[in-house]
Structures are given as structure tokens and as C-alpha cells.
């Protein structure tokens, strides 16, 4: 164990086997000290970044029906809705007024809107000049299916229409056994990685996520991280990794199988393990949306160097019964109280001002 610790601190990459060994045997402090040493090496300045943005979900209508999701409405559900352009514009204006620099744009997988609809939406949004961090690989695959184009062509068209970067949503766990159980209609692990690789090849930066703490094994978490690390070796296109635990309330999955909510302790361990394994990722985000401000602040000592977004609006996690809210001022206070300088950033982690 001490050998692994020494090597990690010296900057070496760990193998999958070593990852599993750390998962089984390392205590909270060993993981924390290693993750913190890596964070300090990658970010020698005591700075913790955050972004001001809002999540805009253009629709909650979705054909995917993932079992872990409490947000979507099936196409036949009369409660499903689409945002109007006025609503979209109001939300962007409000974001701007609060110092926001970007919109995280995501929807459900709407059954019948054509690709042109999304291109129009992007052009409309881009008239305001705001950065659009939008869609996710499952949406790109869905648009490809609807339009009969390849995902690469879809990406090119969306980028031409104004898409600036892509969030890493829909990754869940990149293993098809897990995906078949949770989200059989969502794109496969290979397709997710493929879309990300194409995005990076077109020069678009993206993030990567992992939703853990449901039906996956630790080996499957490792497979997820391994695939991300391999892709990052090939492209370097990921800006950040954001792991968060599954939030079970109001989901079909929790109704079908008994799933214990991931505890704060296990979250911190997984965060640190991710920081240790993903040696080619510059940034790791804390998830205050799922963990609350206290654990999120403590996670700055378990590998996280970014506090994520102020999320002026967030709907998906809230639908699963979790309602933490943090203002920019509160994020700055938490970061400063932990001994770091808070700094507003853009999607690519350059300073906002």
C-alpha cells in the first residue's frame, strides 16, 4: 500500500488492479492525502473555481424512460412540455443579469422534433452571445437517428449553428450490462465514447460524468473510469470529471430495487479514487447539488478543485427530491472558509473576468 501511495504522490499512473486494491484497502485518510497531493500538484495555486450558469431543460418529454430519472415525462403524458422562445430568452436574460456566462442546455429525447429545430434553437440562443454548453451524447445519437445523419454530421451541424461545448451527461456507468438494466433505450457505452471522441476531434471541449451508487459493481465503475482515461489519452478533450451518486427518490429504479442512498463517506472516497485514477484530467468537480454545501466543501480536500456551477436553475436532481440551493456569494464563502481563493471561470476553466 505504501508503495502505491508513494508512486501516486510522485505522479505515477495507477493500474486498474491498483485502483481496486485502493478501493478495498485504503482508508479515508490515505485516499484523501493522495487525492489532495494530486490536486495540489495540478493546481499549485490555492484557487477553487466555479461557473455561473443555469440549467435549461428545453423539454422534459423523453422517449428514453431511464429508470433512475425522476424528471422525464413520457411522450403521451399531457404534463410534458417544451419551453417557448420567450421563456428561453427570459432565462438567458436573467442568467446574464446574475453574472452568468453560459447555459447548460439539455432536454429529454423528444420523439419528433427534427434536427433543424435544435439548430434553430441554438442560432436563436447565440444571438444573445451567451456560451451554449449543450446536449449530451445520448441526445446527439437521438438527433442522428431522427435525421438519418451520422453523429459526426450532427455534431458539425450543431457546432455550425452555435454549439460551443458539450456536457458529459448520459454517461451514467459506461458498461452495457448496467445500461441495459437502467436505460435500455439510451445510447450504448461505445456510442457515448464515440460521440465524445468525434466532438473532441472537431475541436469541441466536453466534460465527463459518472452516476454511481445504484446497480453497478466496483469493477464496472473502474471500467467507466478506464474508458474515460483512455479517451482522454487519445484526445485530451475533456475539461473536467464530475462524479455524483444516484439520487433514488421518485425514481422507477428505487421503486423496483432497494437501493441505499450513497453516504457522504462513500462519496468522498469515490471522489478521491477518481482524482487518483484520472491522472490526465485537469479538473474534478464537487457535487454540491447532490451532497449539500457541507460535504461539497469538505470534498475540496478529497480531490475536487472546482465547485461546479451556481445553477441558477436545476430541475433534474430536484425532481429526485434533493433541493440544495447555493448563491454565488455562498459558494465564495464556502471556498474561502476552506482556505482557497474562489474564482469565477468559464467552461474551459479560464478566468471569467
Amino acid at each position, binding site marked *: 500500500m505504501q508503495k502505491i501511495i508513494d508512486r501516486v504522490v510522485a505522479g505515477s499512473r495507477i493500474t486498474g488492479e491498483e485502483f481496486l486494491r485502493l478501493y478495498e484497502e485504503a482508508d479515508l*485518510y490515505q485516499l484523501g492525502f493522495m487525492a489532495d497531493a494530486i490536486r495540489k500538484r495540478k493546481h499549485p495555486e490555492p484557487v477553487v473555481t466555479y461557473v455561473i450558469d443555469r440549467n435549461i431543460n428545453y423539454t422534459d418529454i423523453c422517449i428514453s424512460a431511464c429508470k433512475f430519472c425522476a424528471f422525464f415525462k413520457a411522450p403521451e403524458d399531457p404534463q410534458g412540455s417544451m419551453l417557448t422562445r420567450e421563456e428561453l430568452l427570459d432565462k438567458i436574460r436573467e442568467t446574464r443579469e446574475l453574472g452568468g456566462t453560459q447555459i447548460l442546455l439539455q432536454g429529454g429525447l423528444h420523439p419528433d422534433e427534427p434536427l433543424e429545430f435544435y439548430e434553430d434553437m441554438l442560432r436563436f440562443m447565440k444571438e444573445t452571445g451567451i456560451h451554449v454548453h449543450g446536449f449530451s451524447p445520448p441526445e446527439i445519437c437521438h438527433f442522428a437517428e431522427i435525421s438519418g445523419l451520422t453523429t459526426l454530421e450532427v455534431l458539425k451541424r450543431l457546432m455550425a449553428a452555435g454549439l460551443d461545448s458539450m456536457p458529459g451527461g448520459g454517461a451514467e456507468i459506461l458498461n452495457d450490462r448496467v445500461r441495459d438494466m437502467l436505460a435500455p433505450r439510451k445510447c450504448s457505452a461505445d456510442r457515448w465514447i464515440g460521440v465524445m471522441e468525434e466532438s473532441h476531434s472537431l475541436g469541441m471541449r466536453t466534460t465527463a460524468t459518472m452516476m454511481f451508487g445504484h446497480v453497478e459493481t466496483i469493477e464496472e465503475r473502474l471500467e467507466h473510469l478506464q474508458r474515460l482515461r483512455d479517451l482522454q489519452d487519445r484526445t485530451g478533450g475533456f475539461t473536467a470529471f464530475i462524479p455524483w451518486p444516484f439520487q433514488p427518490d421518485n425514481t422507477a429504479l428505487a421503486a423496483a430495487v432497494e437501493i441505499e442512498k450513497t453516504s*457522504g*463517506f462513500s462519496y468522498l472516497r469515490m471522489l478521491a479514487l477518481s482524482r487518483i485514477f484520472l491522472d490526465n484530467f485537469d479538473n474534478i468537480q464537487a457535487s454540491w447539488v447532490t451532497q449539500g454545501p457541507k460535504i461539497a466543501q469538505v470534498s475540496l480536500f478529497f480531490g475536487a478543485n472546482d465547485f461546479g456551477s451556481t445553477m441558477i436553475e436545476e430541475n433534474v436532481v430536484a425532481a429526485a427530491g434533493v433541493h440544495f440551493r447555493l448563491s454565488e456569494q*455562498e459558494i465564495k464563502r464556502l471556498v474561502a472558509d476552506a482556505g482557497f481563493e474562489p474564482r469565477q471561470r468559464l467552461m474551459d476553466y479560464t478566468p471569467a473576468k
Partner: protein
Amino acid sequence: MDSFIEQAGLGDILAKVRAEERLSLEDGKRLFECPNILAVGFLANIVRERKNGNKAYFIYNQHINYSNVCTNLCKFCAFGKEKGHEQAYEMTIEDIKEKVRARLDEPITEIHMVGGIHPDLPFSYYLDALRAIKEVRPDVHIQAFTCVEIQHLADLAGKSVGDTLEELKEAGLGSIPGGGAEVFSPRIREITCERKLDGEGWLRVTKTAHRHGLKTNATLLYGHIETIEERLEHLDALRRTQDETGGFLAYIPLAFHPKNTQMSEHSRTTGVDDLKNIAVARLMLDNFPHVKAYWVMIGPKLAQVALSFGADDMDGTVKEEIITHMAGGESEQALGHKTLIKLIKEAGREPVERDTLYKVLETF
């Protein structure tokens, strides 16, 4: 691991901790000021494991707040109300009995009862309250009345604190909770709770209780206007008292909840400060057997993490907690047995259900 502690500038304190040497107030100041919470936690964890091994305690208890009517009206409190206030209430002896009766089917081993400093309830009310609980639930341990209330009861009875305690014991009092300590500093008390029994008085009642065979707890209300020095003086006073009497069971740092108080301009405590208060206390209070992470105040997630930062106790399956929740506490009203046990196990600790005096009732 030692190299991480040395890098954090705490190598000499690590050596002292390993040698079981008492830490100075200056050490305590360095620990509070150390920006590396992992290093501070690591040190606290050494003491925690030395004293309590891998055990993490909890208790099955019931809280009863007999009245919120209070003449002290401390500025940090959202619970106390003036008599006649629309939210003021007081339970009759029958109400108290009913509360106890309502949960007779649960395996409750402790009733935790505190209230305000009531202007006109007679001394007999308090004796009757204890007797009533014992009548309905004879085997239960009653932990009741903070030192502030005890002094008030002695004043009501016109007797010494010692004689008053004997009468209360006779009526069923088993031990005394740690509330009312706030911060001993006269500066803080003058600003926040000038009408309350002062720090010296609190310690005097505590020592009397210890001499009369009653175990007690100790608390510190942190996260408002107190300085690090004031926190440390408070801890030092507790440490010296414990040297003298050995009567403290547990130390419980209490996170200030500003909402609905007269100090609502303050922010809530942060996770790092919560962990630091637990860890530094574990290191300074070398003669206290237990340090509690009170999940009602800091939330179950952080309380679980605190089991690695010096805490060995998560309190209990509290129901009907009023005092923190009136001040905007957002944690669940009750954590089931099952959830507590799961949280403890997930944190790699051994869940132990205890009674008030830390006798092991069951391990899981």
C-alpha cells in the same frame, strides 16, 4: 502518512499525540488555524481510535421539551419565547406522560428533557415531571435539565444546588445534559445571553453534580461571534474540570443555527468548521471519554464523516427535535435505527447501541 502531517506543519503535534502528551492552548490554536482539515482530522482520529477503537455509539432516545417559555431569551436561540407569546407553550404533567406513553412500544432507553427558564412554574412541577416519566416508563434513564435550569430550580427551591440535585435524583433524574454552556467567555455572554447563568456558575453546578454522582455532558455553541481563543479557553475550562471530577461523559460541539434568532445575520457553519470543532476538541479534551457528532445539527452525511474526524458517537434516533429545527435546522427529524447502523457501517465503524452511561446494549 507522517510526511503529510509534517507538510501541514503539524509534525510536532503528531509526536505529542503519539506520546499521549497533553496539548497546549497554543497547539490548539495552530490546529484551529491549520488550513489542512485532513491533517487535523488524522491526528484526532488517532486519539479517537485509541480511546474508542472502532466503535461508534448511538442511543435510542426520546426528546421532550416541556416548555419554551424562557426569561433568558438568549440572542442565539430561536426556541425560547416570552410568556404570552403566541408560540409559547408549556406541557402539563399529563402532557408529558402522554408523550412518554405514545412511544411505549419503542425500545427507548433514555428520555432527554430540557426547557426554558420558566418564570412561574414551581419547583414541584419539575419533580412531578420526573416522577411522571418514571411512572409511565420505570426503566428509562432520564437525562434532564441543563446546569442553567438546575441553578434556576435551586433558586426556586431555596436550597443549595447539592440538595436540589439530591431531590431531583430522588424523583428520577439520572444524568444532566450538556446544554447552556454556550461559550464561557464573559464577553460572549454579555453580548448574547447576559441573563443566563455565567460560565463559572455553569461549571460550579457541573462540579456539584459530579460530586453528587451525576454524570453530565459538555457543549460549546460555535459558529457565531466567538474567537478561536475563546473556544480554546472554553475547552481548557472543561478539561480542567474533568481533571478535577472525571464526571463528564461526552463533549458535544453545537453548530450555531442562525435562522429565526436575533443573530440571523450570521451564516450557517460550514462543513470544514464543523469537522474542525470535533477534531480539535478530540485532541484537546484528552480526558473526555467521548466526543459526539450530533447529526441533528450538522446533518447525517457530515456526522458520518465526523466518525473519522474524532467523533465516536452519533447521538440517537432523535424524534421531535424542536430546538435546532426552530432555528432552521434542515436535517431529518428522525433517523431510523437501520439508517444509523448503515451509515456507521459504511464509514467502516462498528455500530454500538449504548445506554446513557455508555454501557453497551447491542453491537451490530
